[in-house]
Protein backbone atom coordinates (compact mmCIF):
# COMPACT_ATOMS: atom_id res chain seq x y z
CA UNK A 1 0.00 0.00 0.00
CA UNK A 2 1.15 3.47 -0.87
CA UNK A 3 0.44 5.85 1.95
CA UNK A 4 0.88 9.60 2.19
CA UNK A 5 0.74 11.31 5.57
CA UNK A 6 0.58 15.05 6.11
CA UNK A 7 2.46 15.75 2.87
CA UNK A 8 3.62 19.32 2.35
CA UNK A 9 5.20 20.78 -0.76
CA UNK A 10 6.46 24.33 -1.01
CA UNK A 11 7.66 26.24 -4.04
CA UNK A 12 9.63 29.03 -2.44
CA UNK A 13 7.14 30.82 -0.24
CA UNK A 14 4.14 29.30 -2.00
CA UNK A 15 2.61 26.36 -0.22
CA UNK A 16 1.36 24.10 -3.01
CA UNK A 17 0.40 21.14 -0.85
CA UNK A 18 -0.68 21.78 2.73
CA UNK A 19 -0.71 18.53 4.61
CA UNK A 20 -2.64 15.92 2.69
CA UNK A 21 -3.32 12.28 3.61
CA UNK A 22 -3.84 9.67 0.96
CA UNK A 23 -4.02 5.88 0.81
CA UNK A 24 -3.65 3.73 -2.28
CA UNK A 25 -4.37 0.07 -1.39
CA UNK A 26 -2.74 -2.66 -3.50
CA UNK A 27 -4.65 -3.60 -6.61
CA UNK A 28 -7.01 -0.65 -6.54
CA UNK A 29 -7.53 2.33 -8.79
CA UNK A 30 -7.50 5.50 -6.75
CA UNK A 31 -8.09 8.87 -8.34
CA UNK A 32 -7.04 12.31 -7.29
CA UNK A 33 -9.25 14.90 -8.92
CA UNK A 34 -9.19 18.65 -8.77
CA UNK A 35 -8.92 21.72 -10.92
CA UNK A 36 -5.88 23.36 -12.43
CA UNK A 37 -3.27 24.31 -9.86
CA UNK A 38 -4.79 22.26 -7.07
CA UNK A 39 -1.50 20.44 -6.58
CA UNK A 40 -2.22 17.09 -8.25
CA UNK A 41 0.93 16.96 -10.35
CA UNK A 42 3.04 18.18 -7.45
CA UNK A 43 1.76 15.30 -5.36
CA UNK A 44 2.65 12.76 -8.02
CA UNK A 45 6.06 14.26 -8.55
CA UNK A 46 6.74 14.14 -4.85
CA UNK A 47 5.81 10.44 -4.79
CA UNK A 48 8.24 9.83 -7.66
CA UNK A 49 10.93 11.81 -5.87
CA UNK A 50 11.25 14.36 -8.67
CA UNK A 51 10.50 17.24 -6.33
CA UNK A 52 11.41 17.46 -2.67
CA UNK A 53 8.79 17.55 0.03
CA UNK A 54 8.71 20.16 2.76
CA UNK A 55 7.15 17.87 5.34
CA UNK A 56 5.15 14.74 5.96
CA UNK A 57 5.93 11.22 4.80
CA UNK A 58 5.36 8.93 1.87
CA UNK A 59 5.57 5.22 2.59
CA UNK A 60 5.27 2.22 0.33
CA UNK A 61 4.52 -1.12 2.02
CA UNK A 62 5.68 0.41 5.27
CA UNK A 63 8.98 1.58 3.86
CA UNK A 64 9.68 5.29 3.94
CA UNK A 65 10.31 6.56 0.42
CA UNK A 66 10.07 10.27 1.16
CA UNK A 67 12.63 12.25 -0.84
CA UNK A 68 14.40 9.15 -2.09
CA UNK A 69 16.16 9.49 -5.41
CA UNK A 70 13.71 8.90 -8.34
CA UNK A 71 15.91 6.05 -9.52
CA UNK A 72 15.37 4.14 -6.28
CA UNK A 73 11.64 4.75 -6.29
CA UNK A 74 11.34 3.36 -9.82
CA UNK A 75 13.34 0.33 -8.73
CA UNK A 76 10.92 -0.22 -5.85
CA UNK A 77 8.12 -0.52 -8.36
CA UNK A 78 6.54 2.90 -8.48
CA UNK A 79 6.61 4.46 -11.93
CA UNK A 80 5.01 7.51 -13.39
CA UNK A 81 3.59 8.43 -16.76
CA UNK A 82 4.17 12.17 -16.54
CA UNK A 83 1.75 14.96 -17.38
CA UNK A 84 1.69 16.21 -20.96
CA UNK A 85 3.05 12.91 -22.27
CA UNK A 86 6.67 13.80 -21.80
CA UNK A 87 7.99 11.29 -24.26
CA UNK A 88 11.47 11.37 -25.80
CA UNK A 89 10.70 12.87 -29.17
CA UNK A 90 14.10 12.16 -30.70
CA UNK A 91 13.98 8.49 -29.83
CA UNK A 92 11.95 5.89 -31.69
CA UNK A 93 8.90 4.25 -30.14
CA UNK A 94 10.93 1.16 -29.39
CA UNK A 95 13.76 3.16 -27.83
CA UNK A 96 11.28 5.10 -25.72
CA UNK A 97 9.94 1.84 -24.39
CA UNK A 98 13.42 0.51 -23.71
CA UNK A 99 14.20 3.69 -21.78
CA UNK A 100 11.24 2.77 -19.59
CA UNK A 101 12.99 -0.49 -18.77
CA UNK A 102 16.19 1.38 -18.02
CA UNK A 103 16.44 0.29 -14.39
CA UNK A 104 15.83 -3.37 -15.21
CA UNK A 105 18.53 -5.95 -15.70
CA UNK A 106 16.48 -8.95 -16.95
CA UNK A 107 16.73 -8.78 -20.74
CA UNK A 108 14.31 -11.65 -21.33
CA UNK A 109 11.66 -10.10 -19.12
CA UNK A 110 12.03 -6.81 -20.95
CA UNK A 111 11.45 -8.58 -24.26
CA UNK A 112 8.30 -10.23 -22.92
CA UNK A 113 7.01 -6.95 -21.56
CA UNK A 114 7.67 -5.28 -24.90
CA UNK A 115 5.41 -7.90 -26.48
CA UNK A 116 2.88 -7.33 -23.70
CA UNK A 117 2.59 -3.59 -24.25
CA UNK A 118 2.41 -4.13 -28.00
CA UNK A 119 -0.45 -6.54 -27.52
CA UNK A 120 -2.06 -3.96 -25.29
CA UNK A 121 -1.55 -1.06 -27.67
CA UNK A 122 -1.18 -2.62 -31.16
CA UNK A 123 -0.95 0.90 -32.59
CA UNK A 124 2.50 1.26 -31.03
CA UNK A 125 3.75 -1.83 -32.78
CA UNK A 126 2.76 -0.34 -36.12
CA UNK A 127 4.81 2.73 -35.25
CA UNK A 128 7.76 0.90 -33.72
CA UNK A 129 10.53 2.60 -35.74
CA UNK A 130 8.90 6.03 -35.83
CA UNK A 131 10.34 8.88 -33.78
CA UNK A 132 8.27 9.58 -30.68
CA UNK A 133 7.78 13.21 -31.66
CA UNK A 134 5.95 12.25 -34.86
CA UNK A 135 3.15 10.37 -33.09
CA UNK A 136 -0.33 11.80 -32.58
CA UNK A 137 -1.35 12.98 -29.13
CA UNK A 138 -3.24 9.81 -28.34
CA UNK A 139 -0.42 7.60 -29.52
CA UNK A 140 2.03 9.59 -27.44
CA UNK A 141 -0.16 9.01 -24.40
CA UNK A 142 -0.24 5.28 -25.13
CA UNK A 143 3.53 5.41 -25.45
CA UNK A 144 3.94 7.29 -22.18
CA UNK A 145 1.78 4.76 -20.32
CA UNK A 146 3.50 1.82 -21.99
CA UNK A 147 6.90 3.29 -21.24
CA UNK A 148 5.99 3.49 -17.56
CA UNK A 149 4.73 -0.12 -17.73
CA UNK A 150 8.10 -1.22 -19.10
CA UNK A 151 9.63 -0.67 -15.70
CA UNK A 152 7.27 -3.42 -14.50
CA UNK A 153 5.81 -1.27 -11.77
CA UNK A 154 3.57 -2.46 -8.97
CA UNK A 155 2.14 1.02 -8.68
CA UNK A 156 1.46 3.06 -11.79
CA UNK A 157 1.09 6.82 -11.40
CA UNK A 158 -0.88 8.35 -14.24
CA UNK A 159 -0.81 12.10 -14.60
CA UNK A 160 -3.71 13.42 -16.67
CA UNK A 161 -3.87 10.71 -19.33
CA UNK A 162 -6.85 12.46 -20.96
CA UNK A 163 -5.10 15.79 -21.46
CA UNK A 164 -5.27 17.06 -25.02
CA UNK A 165 -6.48 13.86 -26.62
CA UNK A 166 -9.40 13.24 -28.95
CA UNK A 167 -12.47 12.13 -26.89
CA UNK A 168 -12.72 8.82 -28.73
CA UNK A 169 -9.12 7.95 -27.86
CA UNK A 170 -9.63 9.06 -24.27
CA UNK A 171 -12.32 6.40 -23.98
CA UNK A 172 -10.03 3.74 -25.43
CA UNK A 173 -7.19 4.69 -23.12
CA UNK A 174 -9.37 4.61 -20.02
CA UNK A 175 -10.77 1.23 -21.02
CA UNK A 176 -7.20 0.03 -21.33
CA UNK A 177 -6.35 1.40 -17.90
CA UNK A 178 -9.20 -0.55 -16.32
CA UNK A 179 -8.33 -3.67 -18.32
CA UNK A 180 -4.75 -3.36 -17.17
CA UNK A 181 -5.81 -3.15 -13.54
CA UNK A 182 -8.10 -6.18 -13.91
CA UNK A 183 -5.68 -8.38 -15.81
CA UNK A 184 -2.45 -7.66 -13.96
CA UNK A 185 -3.68 -6.40 -10.62
CA UNK A 186 -1.47 -3.35 -10.92
CA UNK A 187 -2.21 -0.54 -8.47
CA UNK A 188 -3.06 2.74 -10.16
CA UNK A 189 -3.07 6.26 -8.83
CA UNK A 190 -4.84 8.34 -11.42
CA UNK A 191 -4.65 12.11 -11.43
CA UNK A 192 -7.32 13.76 -13.54
CA UNK A 193 -9.09 17.00 -14.30
CA UNK A 194 -11.83 15.08 -16.04
CA UNK A 195 -13.56 14.09 -12.81
CA UNK A 196 -16.48 12.27 -14.42
CA UNK A 197 -14.23 9.97 -16.34
CA UNK A 198 -11.84 9.38 -13.48
CA UNK A 199 -14.58 8.55 -11.00
CA UNK A 200 -16.16 6.15 -13.49
CA UNK A 201 -13.08 3.93 -13.51
CA UNK A 202 -11.75 4.37 -9.96
CA UNK A 203 -12.61 2.56 -6.74
CA UNK A 204 -11.86 5.43 -4.46
CA UNK A 205 -11.43 9.14 -4.98
CA UNK A 206 -9.93 12.21 -3.37
CA UNK A 207 -10.84 15.77 -4.24
CA UNK A 208 -7.94 18.19 -4.04
CA UNK A 209 -8.47 21.93 -3.87
CA UNK A 210 -5.65 24.48 -3.48
CA UNK A 211 -3.37 22.05 -1.73
CA UNK A 212 -5.88 20.45 0.59
CA UNK A 213 -8.10 17.41 0.35
CA UNK A 214 -11.64 18.66 0.79
CA UNK A 215 -13.50 15.43 0.11
CA UNK A 216 -12.86 11.75 -0.19
CA UNK A 217 -14.92 8.63 -0.60
CA UNK A 218 -15.86 5.71 -2.77
CA UNK A 219 -15.76 6.75 -6.39
CA UNK A 220 -19.43 6.05 -7.13
CA UNK A 221 -20.50 7.98 -4.03
CA UNK A 222 -18.26 10.91 -4.91
CA UNK A 223 -19.74 10.96 -8.39
CA UNK A 224 -23.18 11.45 -6.82
CA UNK A 225 -22.03 14.03 -4.30
CA UNK A 226 -23.74 17.42 -4.78
CA UNK A 227 -20.63 19.42 -4.12
CA UNK A 228 -18.49 17.43 -6.54
CA UNK A 229 -21.13 17.58 -9.23
CA UNK A 230 -21.35 21.35 -8.88
CA UNK A 231 -17.65 22.02 -8.79
CA UNK A 232 -16.26 19.46 -11.17
CA UNK A 233 -18.98 17.93 -13.23
CA UNK A 234 -20.44 21.19 -14.47
CA UNK A 235 -23.90 20.87 -12.97
Amino acid sequence: MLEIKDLQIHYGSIKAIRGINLKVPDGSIVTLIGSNGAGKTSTLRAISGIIKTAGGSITYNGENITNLHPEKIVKMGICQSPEGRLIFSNLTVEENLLMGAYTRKDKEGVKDDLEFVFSFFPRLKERIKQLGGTLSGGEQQMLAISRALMSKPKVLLLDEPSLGIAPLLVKTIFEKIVALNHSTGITILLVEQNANLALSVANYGYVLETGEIILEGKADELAKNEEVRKAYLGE
Partner: protein
Amino acid sequence: MQVKSKLLFLSSLILIFVINLFAGSIDPYFYTVIIYIGINIILATSLNLINGYTGQFSLGHAGFMAIGGYLSIALSTYFAPFFQNTFGTGVFGEAITFIIVLLAGGTAAALVGLLVGVPSLRLKGDYLAITTLGFAEIIRVVIQNMDVIGASQGFRGVYIYNNGVKAPQMVQDLGEMSNIFYAVPKFTNFFWTFLFVAIIIYYVHNLINSTYGRGFLSVKDDEIAAESMGINTTKFKVSAFVSGAFFAGIAGVLYGHFNLYLNPEDFNFLKSVEIVVMVILGGMGSMIGVIIAAVLLTILPEFLRSVSEYRMIIYALLLIIMMLTRPQGLFGFKIKRKKL
Protein backbone atom coordinates in the same frame (compact mmCIF):
# COMPACT_ATOMS: atom_id res chain seq x y z
CA MET B 1 26.76 -3.34 -36.26
CA GLN B 2 29.12 -3.39 -33.29
CA VAL B 3 31.53 -5.52 -35.33
CA LYS B 4 31.25 -3.26 -38.33
CA SER B 5 32.12 -0.09 -36.42
CA LYS B 6 35.03 -1.89 -34.77
CA LEU B 7 36.34 -2.97 -38.18
CA LEU B 8 35.93 0.55 -39.48
CA PHE B 9 37.81 1.88 -36.49
CA LEU B 10 40.70 -0.55 -36.90
CA SER B 11 41.00 0.01 -40.63
CA SER B 12 41.01 3.76 -40.10
CA LEU B 13 43.88 3.31 -37.62
CA ILE B 14 45.87 1.45 -40.24
CA LEU B 15 45.05 4.11 -42.82
CA ILE B 16 46.17 6.86 -40.43
CA PHE B 17 49.41 4.99 -39.80
CA VAL B 18 50.10 4.57 -43.52
CA ILE B 19 49.30 8.19 -44.35
CA ASN B 20 51.59 9.23 -41.53
CA LEU B 21 54.50 7.54 -43.33
CA PHE B 22 54.02 9.97 -46.21
CA ALA B 23 53.30 12.96 -44.00
CA GLY B 24 56.82 14.25 -44.53
CA SER B 25 56.17 14.94 -48.18
CA ILE B 26 53.07 17.06 -47.51
CA ASP B 27 53.54 20.79 -47.95
CA PRO B 28 54.18 22.22 -44.43
CA TYR B 29 51.40 24.77 -44.77
CA PHE B 30 48.82 22.15 -45.73
CA TYR B 31 50.17 19.87 -43.07
CA THR B 32 49.54 22.53 -40.43
CA VAL B 33 46.01 23.07 -41.67
CA ILE B 34 45.35 19.34 -41.63
CA ILE B 35 46.56 19.04 -38.03
CA TYR B 36 44.35 21.97 -36.98
CA ILE B 37 41.42 20.29 -38.71
CA GLY B 38 42.06 17.18 -36.63
CA ILE B 39 42.31 19.14 -33.39
CA ASN B 40 39.13 21.04 -34.19
CA ILE B 41 37.26 17.83 -34.96
CA ILE B 42 38.24 16.52 -31.53
CA LEU B 43 37.12 19.76 -29.87
CA ALA B 44 33.84 19.99 -31.76
CA THR B 45 32.92 16.32 -31.37
CA SER B 46 33.63 16.38 -27.64
CA LEU B 47 31.56 19.53 -27.20
CA ASN B 48 28.82 17.94 -29.29
CA LEU B 49 28.55 15.22 -26.66
CA ILE B 50 27.78 17.89 -24.05
CA ASN B 51 25.86 20.48 -26.07
CA GLY B 52 24.41 18.39 -28.85
CA TYR B 53 23.55 14.99 -27.43
CA THR B 54 22.99 15.80 -23.78
CA GLY B 55 21.54 19.27 -24.37
CA GLN B 56 23.67 21.10 -21.79
CA PHE B 57 24.95 24.42 -23.06
CA SER B 58 28.62 24.65 -22.12
CA LEU B 59 30.61 27.72 -23.13
CA GLY B 60 33.83 26.75 -21.39
CA HIS B 61 35.49 24.29 -23.71
CA ALA B 62 38.56 26.47 -24.24
CA GLY B 63 39.17 26.30 -20.49
CA PHE B 64 39.49 22.51 -20.53
CA MET B 65 41.68 22.75 -23.59
CA ALA B 66 43.92 25.22 -21.76
CA ILE B 67 44.29 22.92 -18.76
CA GLY B 68 45.29 19.96 -20.92
CA GLY B 69 47.59 22.05 -23.09
CA TYR B 70 49.43 23.91 -20.35
CA LEU B 71 49.78 20.98 -17.99
CA SER B 72 51.19 18.77 -20.74
CA ILE B 73 53.75 21.22 -22.08
CA ALA B 74 54.83 22.04 -18.55
CA LEU B 75 55.37 18.31 -17.96
CA SER B 76 57.21 17.69 -21.19
CA THR B 77 59.60 20.61 -20.61
CA TYR B 78 60.16 20.72 -16.84
CA PHE B 79 60.54 16.97 -16.76
CA ALA B 80 62.29 16.70 -20.10
CA PRO B 81 65.58 15.49 -18.56
CA PHE B 82 63.70 12.90 -16.55
CA PHE B 83 61.75 11.64 -19.56
CA GLN B 84 64.85 11.59 -21.75
CA ASN B 85 66.84 9.65 -19.17
CA THR B 86 64.06 7.19 -18.47
CA PHE B 87 62.65 6.50 -21.91
CA GLY B 88 65.43 7.75 -24.19
CA THR B 89 65.08 10.08 -27.13
CA GLY B 90 64.21 7.51 -29.76
CA VAL B 91 60.85 7.19 -31.48
CA PHE B 92 59.55 4.83 -28.83
CA GLY B 93 60.85 6.88 -25.93
CA GLU B 94 59.13 9.94 -27.32
CA ALA B 95 55.95 7.98 -27.93
CA ILE B 96 55.85 6.80 -24.32
CA THR B 97 56.55 10.30 -23.06
CA PHE B 98 53.79 11.68 -25.28
CA ILE B 99 51.28 9.07 -24.15
CA ILE B 100 52.04 9.99 -20.54
CA VAL B 101 51.57 13.73 -21.08
CA LEU B 102 48.48 13.11 -23.22
CA LEU B 103 46.83 11.09 -20.49
CA ALA B 104 47.95 13.56 -17.85
CA GLY B 105 46.50 16.50 -19.81
CA GLY B 106 43.25 14.69 -20.54
CA THR B 107 42.84 13.44 -16.99
CA ALA B 108 43.54 16.84 -15.46
CA ALA B 109 40.93 18.43 -17.71
CA ALA B 110 38.46 15.65 -16.85
CA LEU B 111 39.04 16.12 -13.12
CA VAL B 112 38.46 19.84 -13.38
CA GLY B 113 35.41 19.02 -15.50
CA LEU B 114 34.10 16.91 -12.63
CA LEU B 115 34.85 19.65 -10.13
CA VAL B 116 33.03 22.26 -12.21
CA GLY B 117 30.33 19.90 -13.46
CA VAL B 118 28.96 18.56 -10.20
CA PRO B 119 27.82 21.91 -8.78
CA SER B 120 27.05 23.73 -12.04
CA LEU B 121 25.10 21.04 -13.88
CA ARG B 122 22.18 21.68 -11.57
CA LEU B 123 21.77 24.83 -13.61
CA LYS B 124 20.02 24.87 -16.94
CA GLY B 125 20.40 26.63 -20.26
CA ASP B 126 21.78 30.14 -20.16
CA TYR B 127 22.75 29.87 -16.48
CA LEU B 128 24.96 26.91 -17.21
CA ALA B 129 26.40 28.73 -20.22
CA ILE B 130 27.35 31.71 -18.05
CA THR B 131 28.84 29.52 -15.30
CA THR B 132 30.99 27.56 -17.73
CA LEU B 133 32.02 30.77 -19.48
CA GLY B 134 33.05 32.23 -16.14
CA PHE B 135 35.01 29.12 -15.30
CA ALA B 136 36.95 29.24 -18.58
CA GLU B 137 37.84 32.88 -17.95
CA ILE B 138 39.07 32.03 -14.45
CA ILE B 139 41.35 29.36 -15.89
CA ARG B 140 42.73 31.84 -18.41
CA VAL B 141 43.35 34.54 -15.81
CA VAL B 142 45.01 32.08 -13.44
CA ILE B 143 47.35 30.95 -16.23
CA GLN B 144 48.01 34.57 -17.10
CA ASN B 145 49.35 35.06 -13.59
CA MET B 146 51.37 31.89 -13.22
CA ASP B 147 55.01 32.82 -13.79
CA VAL B 148 56.06 29.21 -13.74
CA ILE B 149 54.33 28.67 -17.10
CA GLY B 150 55.27 32.00 -18.60
CA ALA B 151 52.26 34.03 -17.42
CA SER B 152 50.98 36.47 -20.04
CA GLN B 153 54.12 36.16 -22.16
CA GLY B 154 53.22 32.62 -23.08
CA PHE B 155 55.19 29.45 -22.65
CA ARG B 156 57.67 27.98 -25.12
CA GLY B 157 60.08 26.06 -22.94
CA VAL B 158 62.19 25.97 -19.83
CA TYR B 159 65.72 27.05 -18.99
CA ILE B 160 67.24 24.53 -16.65
CA TYR B 161 70.35 25.86 -14.94
CA ASN B 162 73.22 23.81 -13.66
CA ASN B 163 72.26 24.58 -10.09
CA GLY B 164 68.81 23.12 -10.68
CA VAL B 165 66.91 26.38 -11.11
CA LYS B 166 64.15 26.06 -13.69
CA ALA B 167 62.39 29.01 -15.27
CA PRO B 168 60.54 29.79 -18.45
CA GLN B 169 62.65 32.93 -18.94
CA MET B 170 66.37 33.61 -18.50
CA VAL B 171 67.03 34.39 -14.84
CA GLN B 172 68.94 37.71 -14.55
CA ASP B 173 70.57 36.95 -11.20
CA LEU B 174 72.20 33.80 -12.46
CA GLY B 175 73.97 35.76 -15.18
CA GLU B 176 76.59 33.65 -16.89
CA MET B 177 75.71 30.34 -15.31
CA SER B 178 75.34 27.70 -17.98
CA ASN B 179 71.90 26.39 -18.75
CA ILE B 180 70.05 24.20 -21.19
CA PHE B 181 66.87 25.38 -22.85
CA TYR B 182 64.25 22.68 -23.17
CA ALA B 183 61.78 23.79 -25.81
CA VAL B 184 58.32 22.23 -26.04
CA PRO B 185 58.99 19.05 -28.04
CA LYS B 186 57.17 18.66 -31.33
CA PHE B 187 55.44 15.42 -30.50
CA THR B 188 52.18 16.05 -32.32
CA ASN B 189 52.04 14.69 -35.81
CA PHE B 190 49.46 13.36 -38.22
CA PHE B 191 49.37 9.97 -36.55
CA TRP B 192 48.70 11.14 -33.00
CA THR B 193 46.17 13.76 -34.02
CA PHE B 194 44.09 11.49 -36.18
CA LEU B 195 44.48 8.59 -33.80
CA PHE B 196 42.50 10.66 -31.32
CA VAL B 197 40.09 11.83 -34.01
CA ALA B 198 39.36 8.15 -34.70
CA ILE B 199 39.11 7.35 -31.00
CA ILE B 200 36.65 10.11 -30.18
CA ILE B 201 34.45 9.38 -33.19
CA TYR B 202 34.41 5.70 -32.31
CA TYR B 203 33.78 6.46 -28.63
CA VAL B 204 30.94 8.93 -29.15
CA HIS B 205 29.35 6.85 -31.90
CA ASN B 206 29.26 3.70 -29.79
CA LEU B 207 28.22 5.58 -26.70
CA ILE B 208 25.24 7.23 -28.35
CA ASN B 209 24.08 3.99 -29.91
CA SER B 210 24.25 1.98 -26.71
CA THR B 211 21.48 1.42 -24.19
CA TYR B 212 23.48 3.45 -21.71
CA GLY B 213 24.01 6.20 -24.28
CA ARG B 214 20.32 6.65 -24.95
CA GLY B 215 20.28 8.08 -21.47
CA PHE B 216 22.11 11.16 -22.81
CA LEU B 217 19.50 11.66 -25.52
CA SER B 218 16.67 11.19 -23.05
CA VAL B 219 18.14 13.85 -20.76
CA LYS B 220 18.18 16.24 -23.70
CA ASP B 221 14.64 15.38 -24.80
CA ASP B 222 12.98 15.71 -21.44
CA GLU B 223 14.56 15.75 -18.04
CA ILE B 224 11.37 15.22 -16.06
CA ALA B 225 10.38 12.24 -18.17
CA ALA B 226 13.88 10.83 -17.87
CA GLU B 227 13.75 11.16 -14.10
CA SER B 228 10.32 9.55 -14.01
CA MET B 229 11.85 6.55 -15.76
CA GLY B 230 14.45 6.25 -13.04
CA ILE B 231 17.28 7.75 -15.08
CA ASN B 232 19.83 9.56 -12.96
CA THR B 233 19.97 12.73 -15.05
CA THR B 234 22.74 14.36 -13.01
CA LYS B 235 24.96 11.34 -13.52
CA PHE B 236 24.50 11.51 -17.28
CA LYS B 237 25.10 15.24 -17.43
CA VAL B 238 28.25 14.97 -15.36
CA SER B 239 29.56 11.99 -17.32
CA ALA B 240 29.01 13.81 -20.64
CA PHE B 241 30.73 16.86 -19.20
CA VAL B 242 33.70 14.91 -17.85
CA SER B 243 34.33 12.88 -20.99
CA GLY B 244 33.90 16.01 -23.12
CA ALA B 245 36.45 17.77 -20.91
CA PHE B 246 38.85 14.84 -21.21
CA PHE B 247 38.93 15.08 -24.98
CA ALA B 248 39.17 18.87 -24.89
CA GLY B 249 42.23 18.36 -22.68
CA ILE B 250 43.66 15.92 -25.23
CA ALA B 251 43.05 18.50 -27.97
CA GLY B 252 44.94 21.02 -25.85
CA VAL B 253 47.89 18.63 -25.49
CA LEU B 254 47.98 18.05 -29.24
CA TYR B 255 47.74 21.77 -29.92
CA GLY B 256 50.53 22.61 -27.45
CA HIS B 257 52.91 20.02 -28.84
CA PHE B 258 52.28 21.16 -32.38
CA ASN B 259 52.35 24.91 -31.95
CA LEU B 260 55.26 24.60 -29.48
CA TYR B 261 54.06 27.78 -27.84
CA LEU B 262 50.97 28.49 -25.79
CA ASN B 263 49.62 31.86 -24.83
CA PRO B 264 46.70 32.39 -22.44
CA GLU B 265 45.03 34.40 -25.21
CA ASP B 266 44.81 31.23 -27.31
CA PHE B 267 42.12 30.10 -24.90
CA ASN B 268 40.00 33.19 -24.56
CA PHE B 269 36.24 33.46 -24.83
CA LEU B 270 36.43 33.54 -28.63
CA LYS B 271 38.01 30.11 -28.74
CA SER B 272 35.08 28.64 -26.77
CA VAL B 273 32.64 30.42 -29.07
CA GLU B 274 34.46 29.11 -32.11
CA ILE B 275 33.91 25.53 -30.93
CA VAL B 276 30.26 26.20 -30.09
CA VAL B 277 29.81 27.66 -33.58
CA MET B 278 31.15 24.44 -35.10
CA VAL B 279 28.61 22.41 -33.14
CA ILE B 280 25.69 24.69 -33.97
CA LEU B 281 26.68 25.06 -37.61
CA GLY B 282 27.05 21.33 -38.01
CA GLY B 283 23.74 20.63 -36.33
CA MET B 284 23.51 19.86 -32.62
CA GLY B 285 23.75 16.16 -32.09
CA SER B 286 24.82 15.29 -35.61
CA MET B 287 28.19 13.60 -35.69
CA ILE B 288 28.80 13.99 -39.43
CA GLY B 289 27.50 17.56 -39.47
CA VAL B 290 29.79 18.65 -36.67
CA ILE B 291 32.83 17.02 -38.25
CA ILE B 292 32.11 18.73 -41.57
CA ALA B 293 31.57 22.05 -39.82
CA ALA B 294 34.89 21.65 -37.99
CA VAL B 295 36.65 21.00 -41.30
CA LEU B 296 34.88 23.88 -43.09
CA LEU B 297 35.46 26.40 -40.33
CA THR B 298 39.16 25.53 -40.22
CA ILE B 299 39.63 25.77 -43.97
CA LEU B 300 37.41 28.75 -44.65
CA PRO B 301 39.59 31.41 -43.01
CA GLU B 302 42.54 29.98 -44.94
CA PHE B 303 40.75 30.26 -48.26
CA LEU B 304 39.80 33.81 -47.46
CA ARG B 305 43.41 34.83 -46.91
CA SER B 306 43.48 36.20 -50.46
CA VAL B 307 41.04 38.95 -49.48
CA SER B 308 43.19 39.72 -46.44
CA GLU B 309 41.57 42.39 -44.29
CA TYR B 310 38.02 41.53 -45.35
CA ARG B 311 38.58 37.95 -44.33
CA MET B 312 36.86 37.93 -40.98
CA ILE B 313 33.96 40.05 -42.28
CA ILE B 314 33.25 37.53 -45.01
CA TYR B 315 33.64 34.69 -42.54
CA ALA B 316 31.12 36.30 -40.21
CA LEU B 317 28.73 37.04 -43.08
CA LEU B 318 28.84 33.43 -44.19
CA LEU B 319 27.95 32.35 -40.67
CA ILE B 320 25.00 34.75 -40.58
CA ILE B 321 23.72 33.61 -43.96
CA MET B 322 24.12 30.01 -42.91
CA MET B 323 22.11 30.56 -39.74
CA LEU B 324 19.38 32.40 -41.63
CA THR B 325 18.98 29.72 -44.26
CA ARG B 326 19.65 26.61 -42.20
CA PRO B 327 19.04 27.41 -38.55
CA GLN B 328 19.00 23.72 -37.69
CA GLY B 329 22.61 23.41 -38.87
CA LEU B 330 24.09 21.60 -41.84
CA PHE B 331 22.64 18.27 -40.82
CA GLY B 332 19.66 19.31 -38.78
CA PHE B 333 18.64 18.53 -35.24
CA LYS B 334 17.44 15.06 -35.99
CA ILE B 335 19.89 12.63 -34.61
CA LYS B 336 20.84 10.29 -37.37
CA ARG B 337 21.58 7.01 -35.76
CA LYS B 338 21.44 3.43 -36.78
CA LYS B 339 18.29 1.47 -36.16
CA LEU B 340 18.15 -0.88 -33.23
